[in-house]
């Protein structure tokens, strides 16, 4: 879903050039990294553990980054409230469990609530300002960030809350490597939701309409796509992906608190910038890269302590953007003068 529809003006010629000249070096580097990781995993059990953990955390970053990308493609704004929205939906799941639902019942109920929430927010708060000023719409999401933070603190307070573990406490042993069932579980749940969203975009008429509405709103309105409705659904899907990210982030932190998603939002931003804000696949790959890289770097590079994790992420983003200003998988925006 990343390739064909992101090009705004370029035709087939443009796409061919991108595939031949730009994407393949990136792909080569990625394959090389993957091979390096595999070799490392076979040689050291600590390395393998860190890699698996990094992939699981990275899938959470990637899922939130994908939410950001969906919103960006639909409405051309970066949603600063995406992380807090995910945090709010995680609290809703917590509340549902408190009311007696089992974990997975609460999980799916929360996804439905998140969808409604995202759609309603787009219709009531974003759409009215979007036509008038992009910056005003971005500021609305910033206001939403503060508002949600306040509401959650108001209702549930700042104390740690505990949710039952979704995957039990089993530990897998492969050779000398022992891995908690949590990490593969997180990875698989995120992967399933990402694949489902991809399939929705790729194979359904609704997905086609959403892609069309995102790329050429005016033209798709002319052929009968309900553009406004598509954009609202885009926001709803983003909120669902965010909810998945929040629900999977909670067990990795072992407790729920109002600041749960704030560092994760930063890494998701990093992932989205790394992969390219236009590219859903790039966001997921970017998330995995950030997750694994951070985990390994903090362990193996003495100069980079936990305190320097964020500055390191910043340095990486800056370095990538300097080489490729629209991300690894992004497409340079071509404008007619």
């Amino acid at each position: 879903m990343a390739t064909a529809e992101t090009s705004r003006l370029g035709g087939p010629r443009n796409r061919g050039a991108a595939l031949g000249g730009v994407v393949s070096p990136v792909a080569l580097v990625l394959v090389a990294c993957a091979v390096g990781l595999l070799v490392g995993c076979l040689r050291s059990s600590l390395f393998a553990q860190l890699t698996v953990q990094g992939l699981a955390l990275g899938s959470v970053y990637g899922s939130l980054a994908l939410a950001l990308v969906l919103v960006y493609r639909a409405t051309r704004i970066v949603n600063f409230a995406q992380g807090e929205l995910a945090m709010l939906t995680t609290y809703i799941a917590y509340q549902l469990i408190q009311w007696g639902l089992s974990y997975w019942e609460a999980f799916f109920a929360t996804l439905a609530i998140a969808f409604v929430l995202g759609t309603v927010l787009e219709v009531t708060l974003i759409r009215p300002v979007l036509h008038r000023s992009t910056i005003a719409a971005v500021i609305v999401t910033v206001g939403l960030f503060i508002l949600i933070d306040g509401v959650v603190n108001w209702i549930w307070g700042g104390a740690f809350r505990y949710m039952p573990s979704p995957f039990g406490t089993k530990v897998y042993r492969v050779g000398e490597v022992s891995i908690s069932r949590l990490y593969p579980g997180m990875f698989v749940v995120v992967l399933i939701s990402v694949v489902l969203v991809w399939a929705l975009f790729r194979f359904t008429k609704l997905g086609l309409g959403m892609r069309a509405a995102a790329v050429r709103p005016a033209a798709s309105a002319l052929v009968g796509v309900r553009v406004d409705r598509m954009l609202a659904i885009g926001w709803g899907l983003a909120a669902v992906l965010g909810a998945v990210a929040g629900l999977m982030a909670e067990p990795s932190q072992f407790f729920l608190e109002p600041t749960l998603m704030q560092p994760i939002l930063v890494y998701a931003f990093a992932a989205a910038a790394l992969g390219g804000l236009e590219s859903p696949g790039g966001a997921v790959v970017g998330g995995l890269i950030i997750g694994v890289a951070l985990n390994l770097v903090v362990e193996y590079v003495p100069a980079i302590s936990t305190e320097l994790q964020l500055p390191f992420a910043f340095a990486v983003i800056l370095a990538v953007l300097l080489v490729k200003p629209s991300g690894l998988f992004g497409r340079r925006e071509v404008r007619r003068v």
Partner: protein
Amino acid sequence: MTRRLATLVSIAVVVAVLCLLPFILSDYNVGLVAQVGIFYIAVLGLDILTGYAGQISIGHGAFMMIGGYTTAVMSRDHHTNLIVTMLMAFAICFVVGVLLGLPALRLSGPYLALATFAFAVSVPQLPLEWSKFLGGRDGVETSQTVSNSWLYGVAWAASAILLVLAWLILRGRIGRAFRAVRDSEIAAVASGVELPVYKTLAFGISAAFCGVAGSLFVLATNGFAEPSEFGILLSLEILIGAAVAGLGSLWGILAGAAFVGLLPNVSSSVPVIGSTHGQDVVFGAAVILVMLLLPGGAAGLIARLTGARA
């Protein structure tokens, strides 16, 4: 001619009110209005970059932090005069701003927003790493503290000086170049504007302003420079201030600064919503409401009322 007269009269009124306020208000409220002055400087700085040169930044809290730590460290180690440390904060932040402006040359729009956001969350981590020099989580304390009235006088004097400086910069050649870059980079280059020079200059000037605001900000918190004071929320508040002010107008900034400087404190004194998080709810809701009702901010409102373009 009447427009010019109206402008002069409104300036005179604002200056007169600001001169009289310390004699009317209680000491606590003088401190609050001084806080507005500090935000005024920061929002003014961001507006030069975002409103005039068209480059968005979500990282200006980090410049405030660099300015604040400059004051705190110089005061702790060398007992430097506080006013002198503000000038140093101005100079240091100018240099850092230009340095950040260099990579920013390659970025635009949302990517610049993301990169500056990352800058804003990265810088507060540095004192935790270099805790010997920068005091770690506990922060750095200045060797002397100041009274609320001192802060009020200095903050608003600095605001006035920097406003005049901004006006002088923006009305002339540099300001025209900034606006040209904002409106169309291609047209600007075609008319002979050196894009790299003016973009980095805009970053430097705006960072320098925020550096001064940061110095004052540290003095306003009893001379403590702590990483937690300069979190991402501060950067977002500056951005909100600029948006409420309305980008690209020197007039609205007073409204924007008052909004972010006063609203949280005022709402916290109201009984029911006064709980610590009630004020966040009010602030967030107010931000959303203002943007829904006035997408152009206070400047847009002024323009509508006076029937002219701001």
